[in-house]
């Protein structure tokens, strides 16, 4: 009898534990809280800026083909190597400009228009959009870290001359632990980030020095002028235009005025890595267009940067999930246990010569734009600028509520797992994340999770 009671008690406790433990509310439903232009852009201030934004958005959505001659794929310059065929295909969730969508377009990209690529094992239809990097050149201790494009244009109907170009050996890289991944960073509010003065960032850095959480970051400084770089997972890019130009070249294989040559893989021979038969177009494939309209004159790269610059930041929910009381409580707890030390809730932008919404505005980005040691668990052994293998830019949290995949490599869709990943040997976030797990009550943890999913 007593044994039966114990058994029932155990079963009841097993069933109820999941109900009372905190849980990630999941991707916030409802309308996308992002994707629109800044309010002053919508008000067309200055005159014609809205036309530029709309044109930029169209270009961001444009699908590239090799020669731009395929219907619905009028963008020019795809490949010879590429990860996907359009900016918006990957920057999609919850709206154009965002991050990895529910359905990974890279599965279809592998064979689009006759291409004959094998889909690597780490690319799945319900998984995150990914770019792959090999931290080291195979069988050496020479750091590589460059992007290894997933696909080639071999077999495509518009690339008949390119008959021999191999995909990287991803299986070997996986077998030797020589591969890491990056997912697309959301670009909402990027113009605000771009317009935060270095002095503001340095003042915030100085304010952090009195923290009691063991946090002390640094900046990834531009190698040419020493100013603070701020875009990309490791804050390796100084400006949106550099960010756009590199992505266009690396992700879609489109040479442009910032990255002017077709790109072989990092380890390929510079002369023979890309056969001349696969270099289909004159370079740069994306360039300033002379003798057209004012908007049409601009290159895609310039307009991609403009689109990101003029995108409004995400709008948080004040009630979902969990209600306003829980969200407000979660915000206060987030601050109390020191998450806000790195995830600085807001910074003020400088005066803007572009449009009023970018000037002297409050950017609620939840980032200090510094790079921090994140320890062995998140280390990817890729150095970029001043950032070492385990140093990452504090990921801005605005828009987090509607993101599907977390961390630089999209390894999880669970917010709790993402917080847990802040804990590992060498991480600056160990103290704050331990306070979350060890010292908050279940209800308090839930409030923090609700707050984060409200962003």
């Amino acid at each position: 009898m007593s044994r039966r009671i114990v058994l029932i008690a155990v079963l009841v406790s097993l069933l109820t534990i999941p109900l009372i433990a905190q849980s990630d509310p999941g991707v916030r439903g409802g309308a996308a809280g992002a994707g629109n232009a800044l309010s002053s852009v919508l008000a067309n201030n200055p005159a014609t800026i809205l036309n530029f934004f709309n044109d930029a958005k169209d270009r961001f959505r444009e699908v590239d083909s090799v020669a731009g001659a395929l219907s619905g794929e009028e963008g020019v310059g795809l490949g010879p190597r590429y990860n996907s065929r359009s900016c918006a295909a990957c920057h999609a969730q919850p709206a154009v400009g965002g991050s990895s969508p529910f359905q990974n377009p890279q599965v279809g990209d592998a064979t689009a228009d006759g291409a004959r690529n094998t889909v690597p094992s780490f690319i799945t239809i319900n998984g995150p959009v990914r770019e792959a990097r090999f931290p080291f050149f195979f069988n050496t201790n020479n750091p590589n870290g460059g992007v290894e494009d997933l696909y080639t244009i071999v077999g495509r109907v518009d690339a008949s001359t390119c008959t021999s170009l191999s995909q990287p050996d991803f299986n070997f890289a996986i077998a030797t632990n020589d591969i890491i991944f990056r997912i697309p960073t959301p670009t909402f509010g990027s113009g605000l980030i771009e317009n935060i003065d270095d002095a503001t960032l340095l003042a915030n850095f100085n304010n952090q020095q009195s923290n009691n959480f063991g946090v002390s970051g640094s900046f990834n400084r531009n190698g040419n002028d020493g100013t603070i770089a701020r875009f990309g997972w490791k804050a390796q890019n100084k400006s949106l235009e550099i960010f756009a130009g590199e992505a266009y070249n690396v992700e879609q294989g489109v040479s442009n005025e910032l990255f002017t040559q077709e790109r072989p893989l990092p380890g390929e021979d510079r002369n023979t890595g890309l056969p001349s038969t696969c270099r289909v177009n004159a370079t740069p494939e994306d360039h300033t267009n002379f003798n057209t309209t004012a908007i049409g004159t601009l290159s895609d790269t310039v307009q991609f940067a403009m689109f990101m610059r003029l995108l409004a930041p995400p709008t948080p929910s004040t009630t979902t999930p969990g209600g306003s009381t829980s969200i407000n409580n979660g915000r206060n707890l987030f601050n109390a246990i020191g998450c806000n030390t790195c995830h600085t809730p807001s910074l003020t932008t400088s005066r803007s010569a572009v449009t009023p919404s970018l000037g002297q505005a409050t950017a609620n980005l939840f980032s200090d734009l510094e790079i921090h040691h994140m320890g062995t668990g998140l280390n990817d052994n890729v150095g970029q600028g001043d950032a070492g293998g385990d140093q990452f830019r504090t990921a801005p949290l605005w828009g987090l509520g509607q993101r599907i995949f977390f961390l630089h490599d999209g390894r999880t869709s669970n917010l709790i797992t993402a917080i847990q990943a802040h804990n590992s040997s060498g991480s600056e976030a160990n103290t704050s994340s331990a306070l979350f797990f060890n010292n908050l009550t279940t209800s308090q943890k839930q409030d923090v999770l609700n707050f984060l999913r409200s962003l």
Partner: protein
Amino acid sequence: MRRTFIVFLFAAPLLAQQSIVETAPPKGPALVYPKDVILVKGAEPSASDAKTPLPEGGRIADDAYRNDYFGMTYALPRGLKQPFAGPPPSDSGSYVLVQLQAPDKPAVLITAQDLFFSASAKTAADLVSYKKETLPSYYDVERPPAELEIAGRPFARFDYVSPVAGLHWFVLATEVRCHAVQFVLTGRDTKAMETIVGDLAAMKIGNAGAPACVRDYAAGTNVLYRVEPVLTEHKFNRIPVRIVIDTKGRVKHIHFLAAFPQQAAIITDALLQWRFKPYLVNGEPAEVETGLMFGGGATTVVKAGD
């Protein structure tokens, strides 16, 4: 795992010159890279010799934390463990020495701030006062900064609470070798926290045999001869450096808190040529420890044409 890594280190120089093509697997045995090991580092700590104790060189053994640089032996509070080591020293002179945690128990964070490189304080007491002055509005002060003695040393203590979290913070700081060594206790149970504070009395801390530490000693007329290091790559990061100058005015020991290896090599080459006025204690030459900042954090600006 360890065997793999050793193979990796030995094999690498031999293979580095081979043609590198990732589209095909290389011939010969595959080199498997260890997981969860940071092999590609950014600016990192290093020193000119392996013998001299370093602030980041502490270790936990036999339920105690020992740090030869700070002359510290601290018995860990019962039930607390360090699941993960802290980050390397930062370029603003901050060290995480120990992080002790356990579910539902107070957390203990022991840090050190190199006061040579602190923008906000020149003493441990200053630092604690600064923490109080800059305390965010969502905390309430429970005990304003005050001096007390623990383990025979002057400490500054400051307590505050987060009403929304129900968590209390006790901050206790003392000065050792021009560092503010801080004990930060966080938890709900203030009685348990007071017990941990009480147990600090049994701690050993302080290194009587250490060189004198003097802020900005390597400046002005104390420097008799200097060679400027010329950085090539990574020119703009802050490079905090601690040096020990011997009784003859030569650099005896160099500790980089955060520097790229090439930077450390260039700066070491330069510093070993510097000559100083010997530091005097009661008229006798004595070793002295001081700090310098190179790179983007250097305080001097070379004007165009200089």
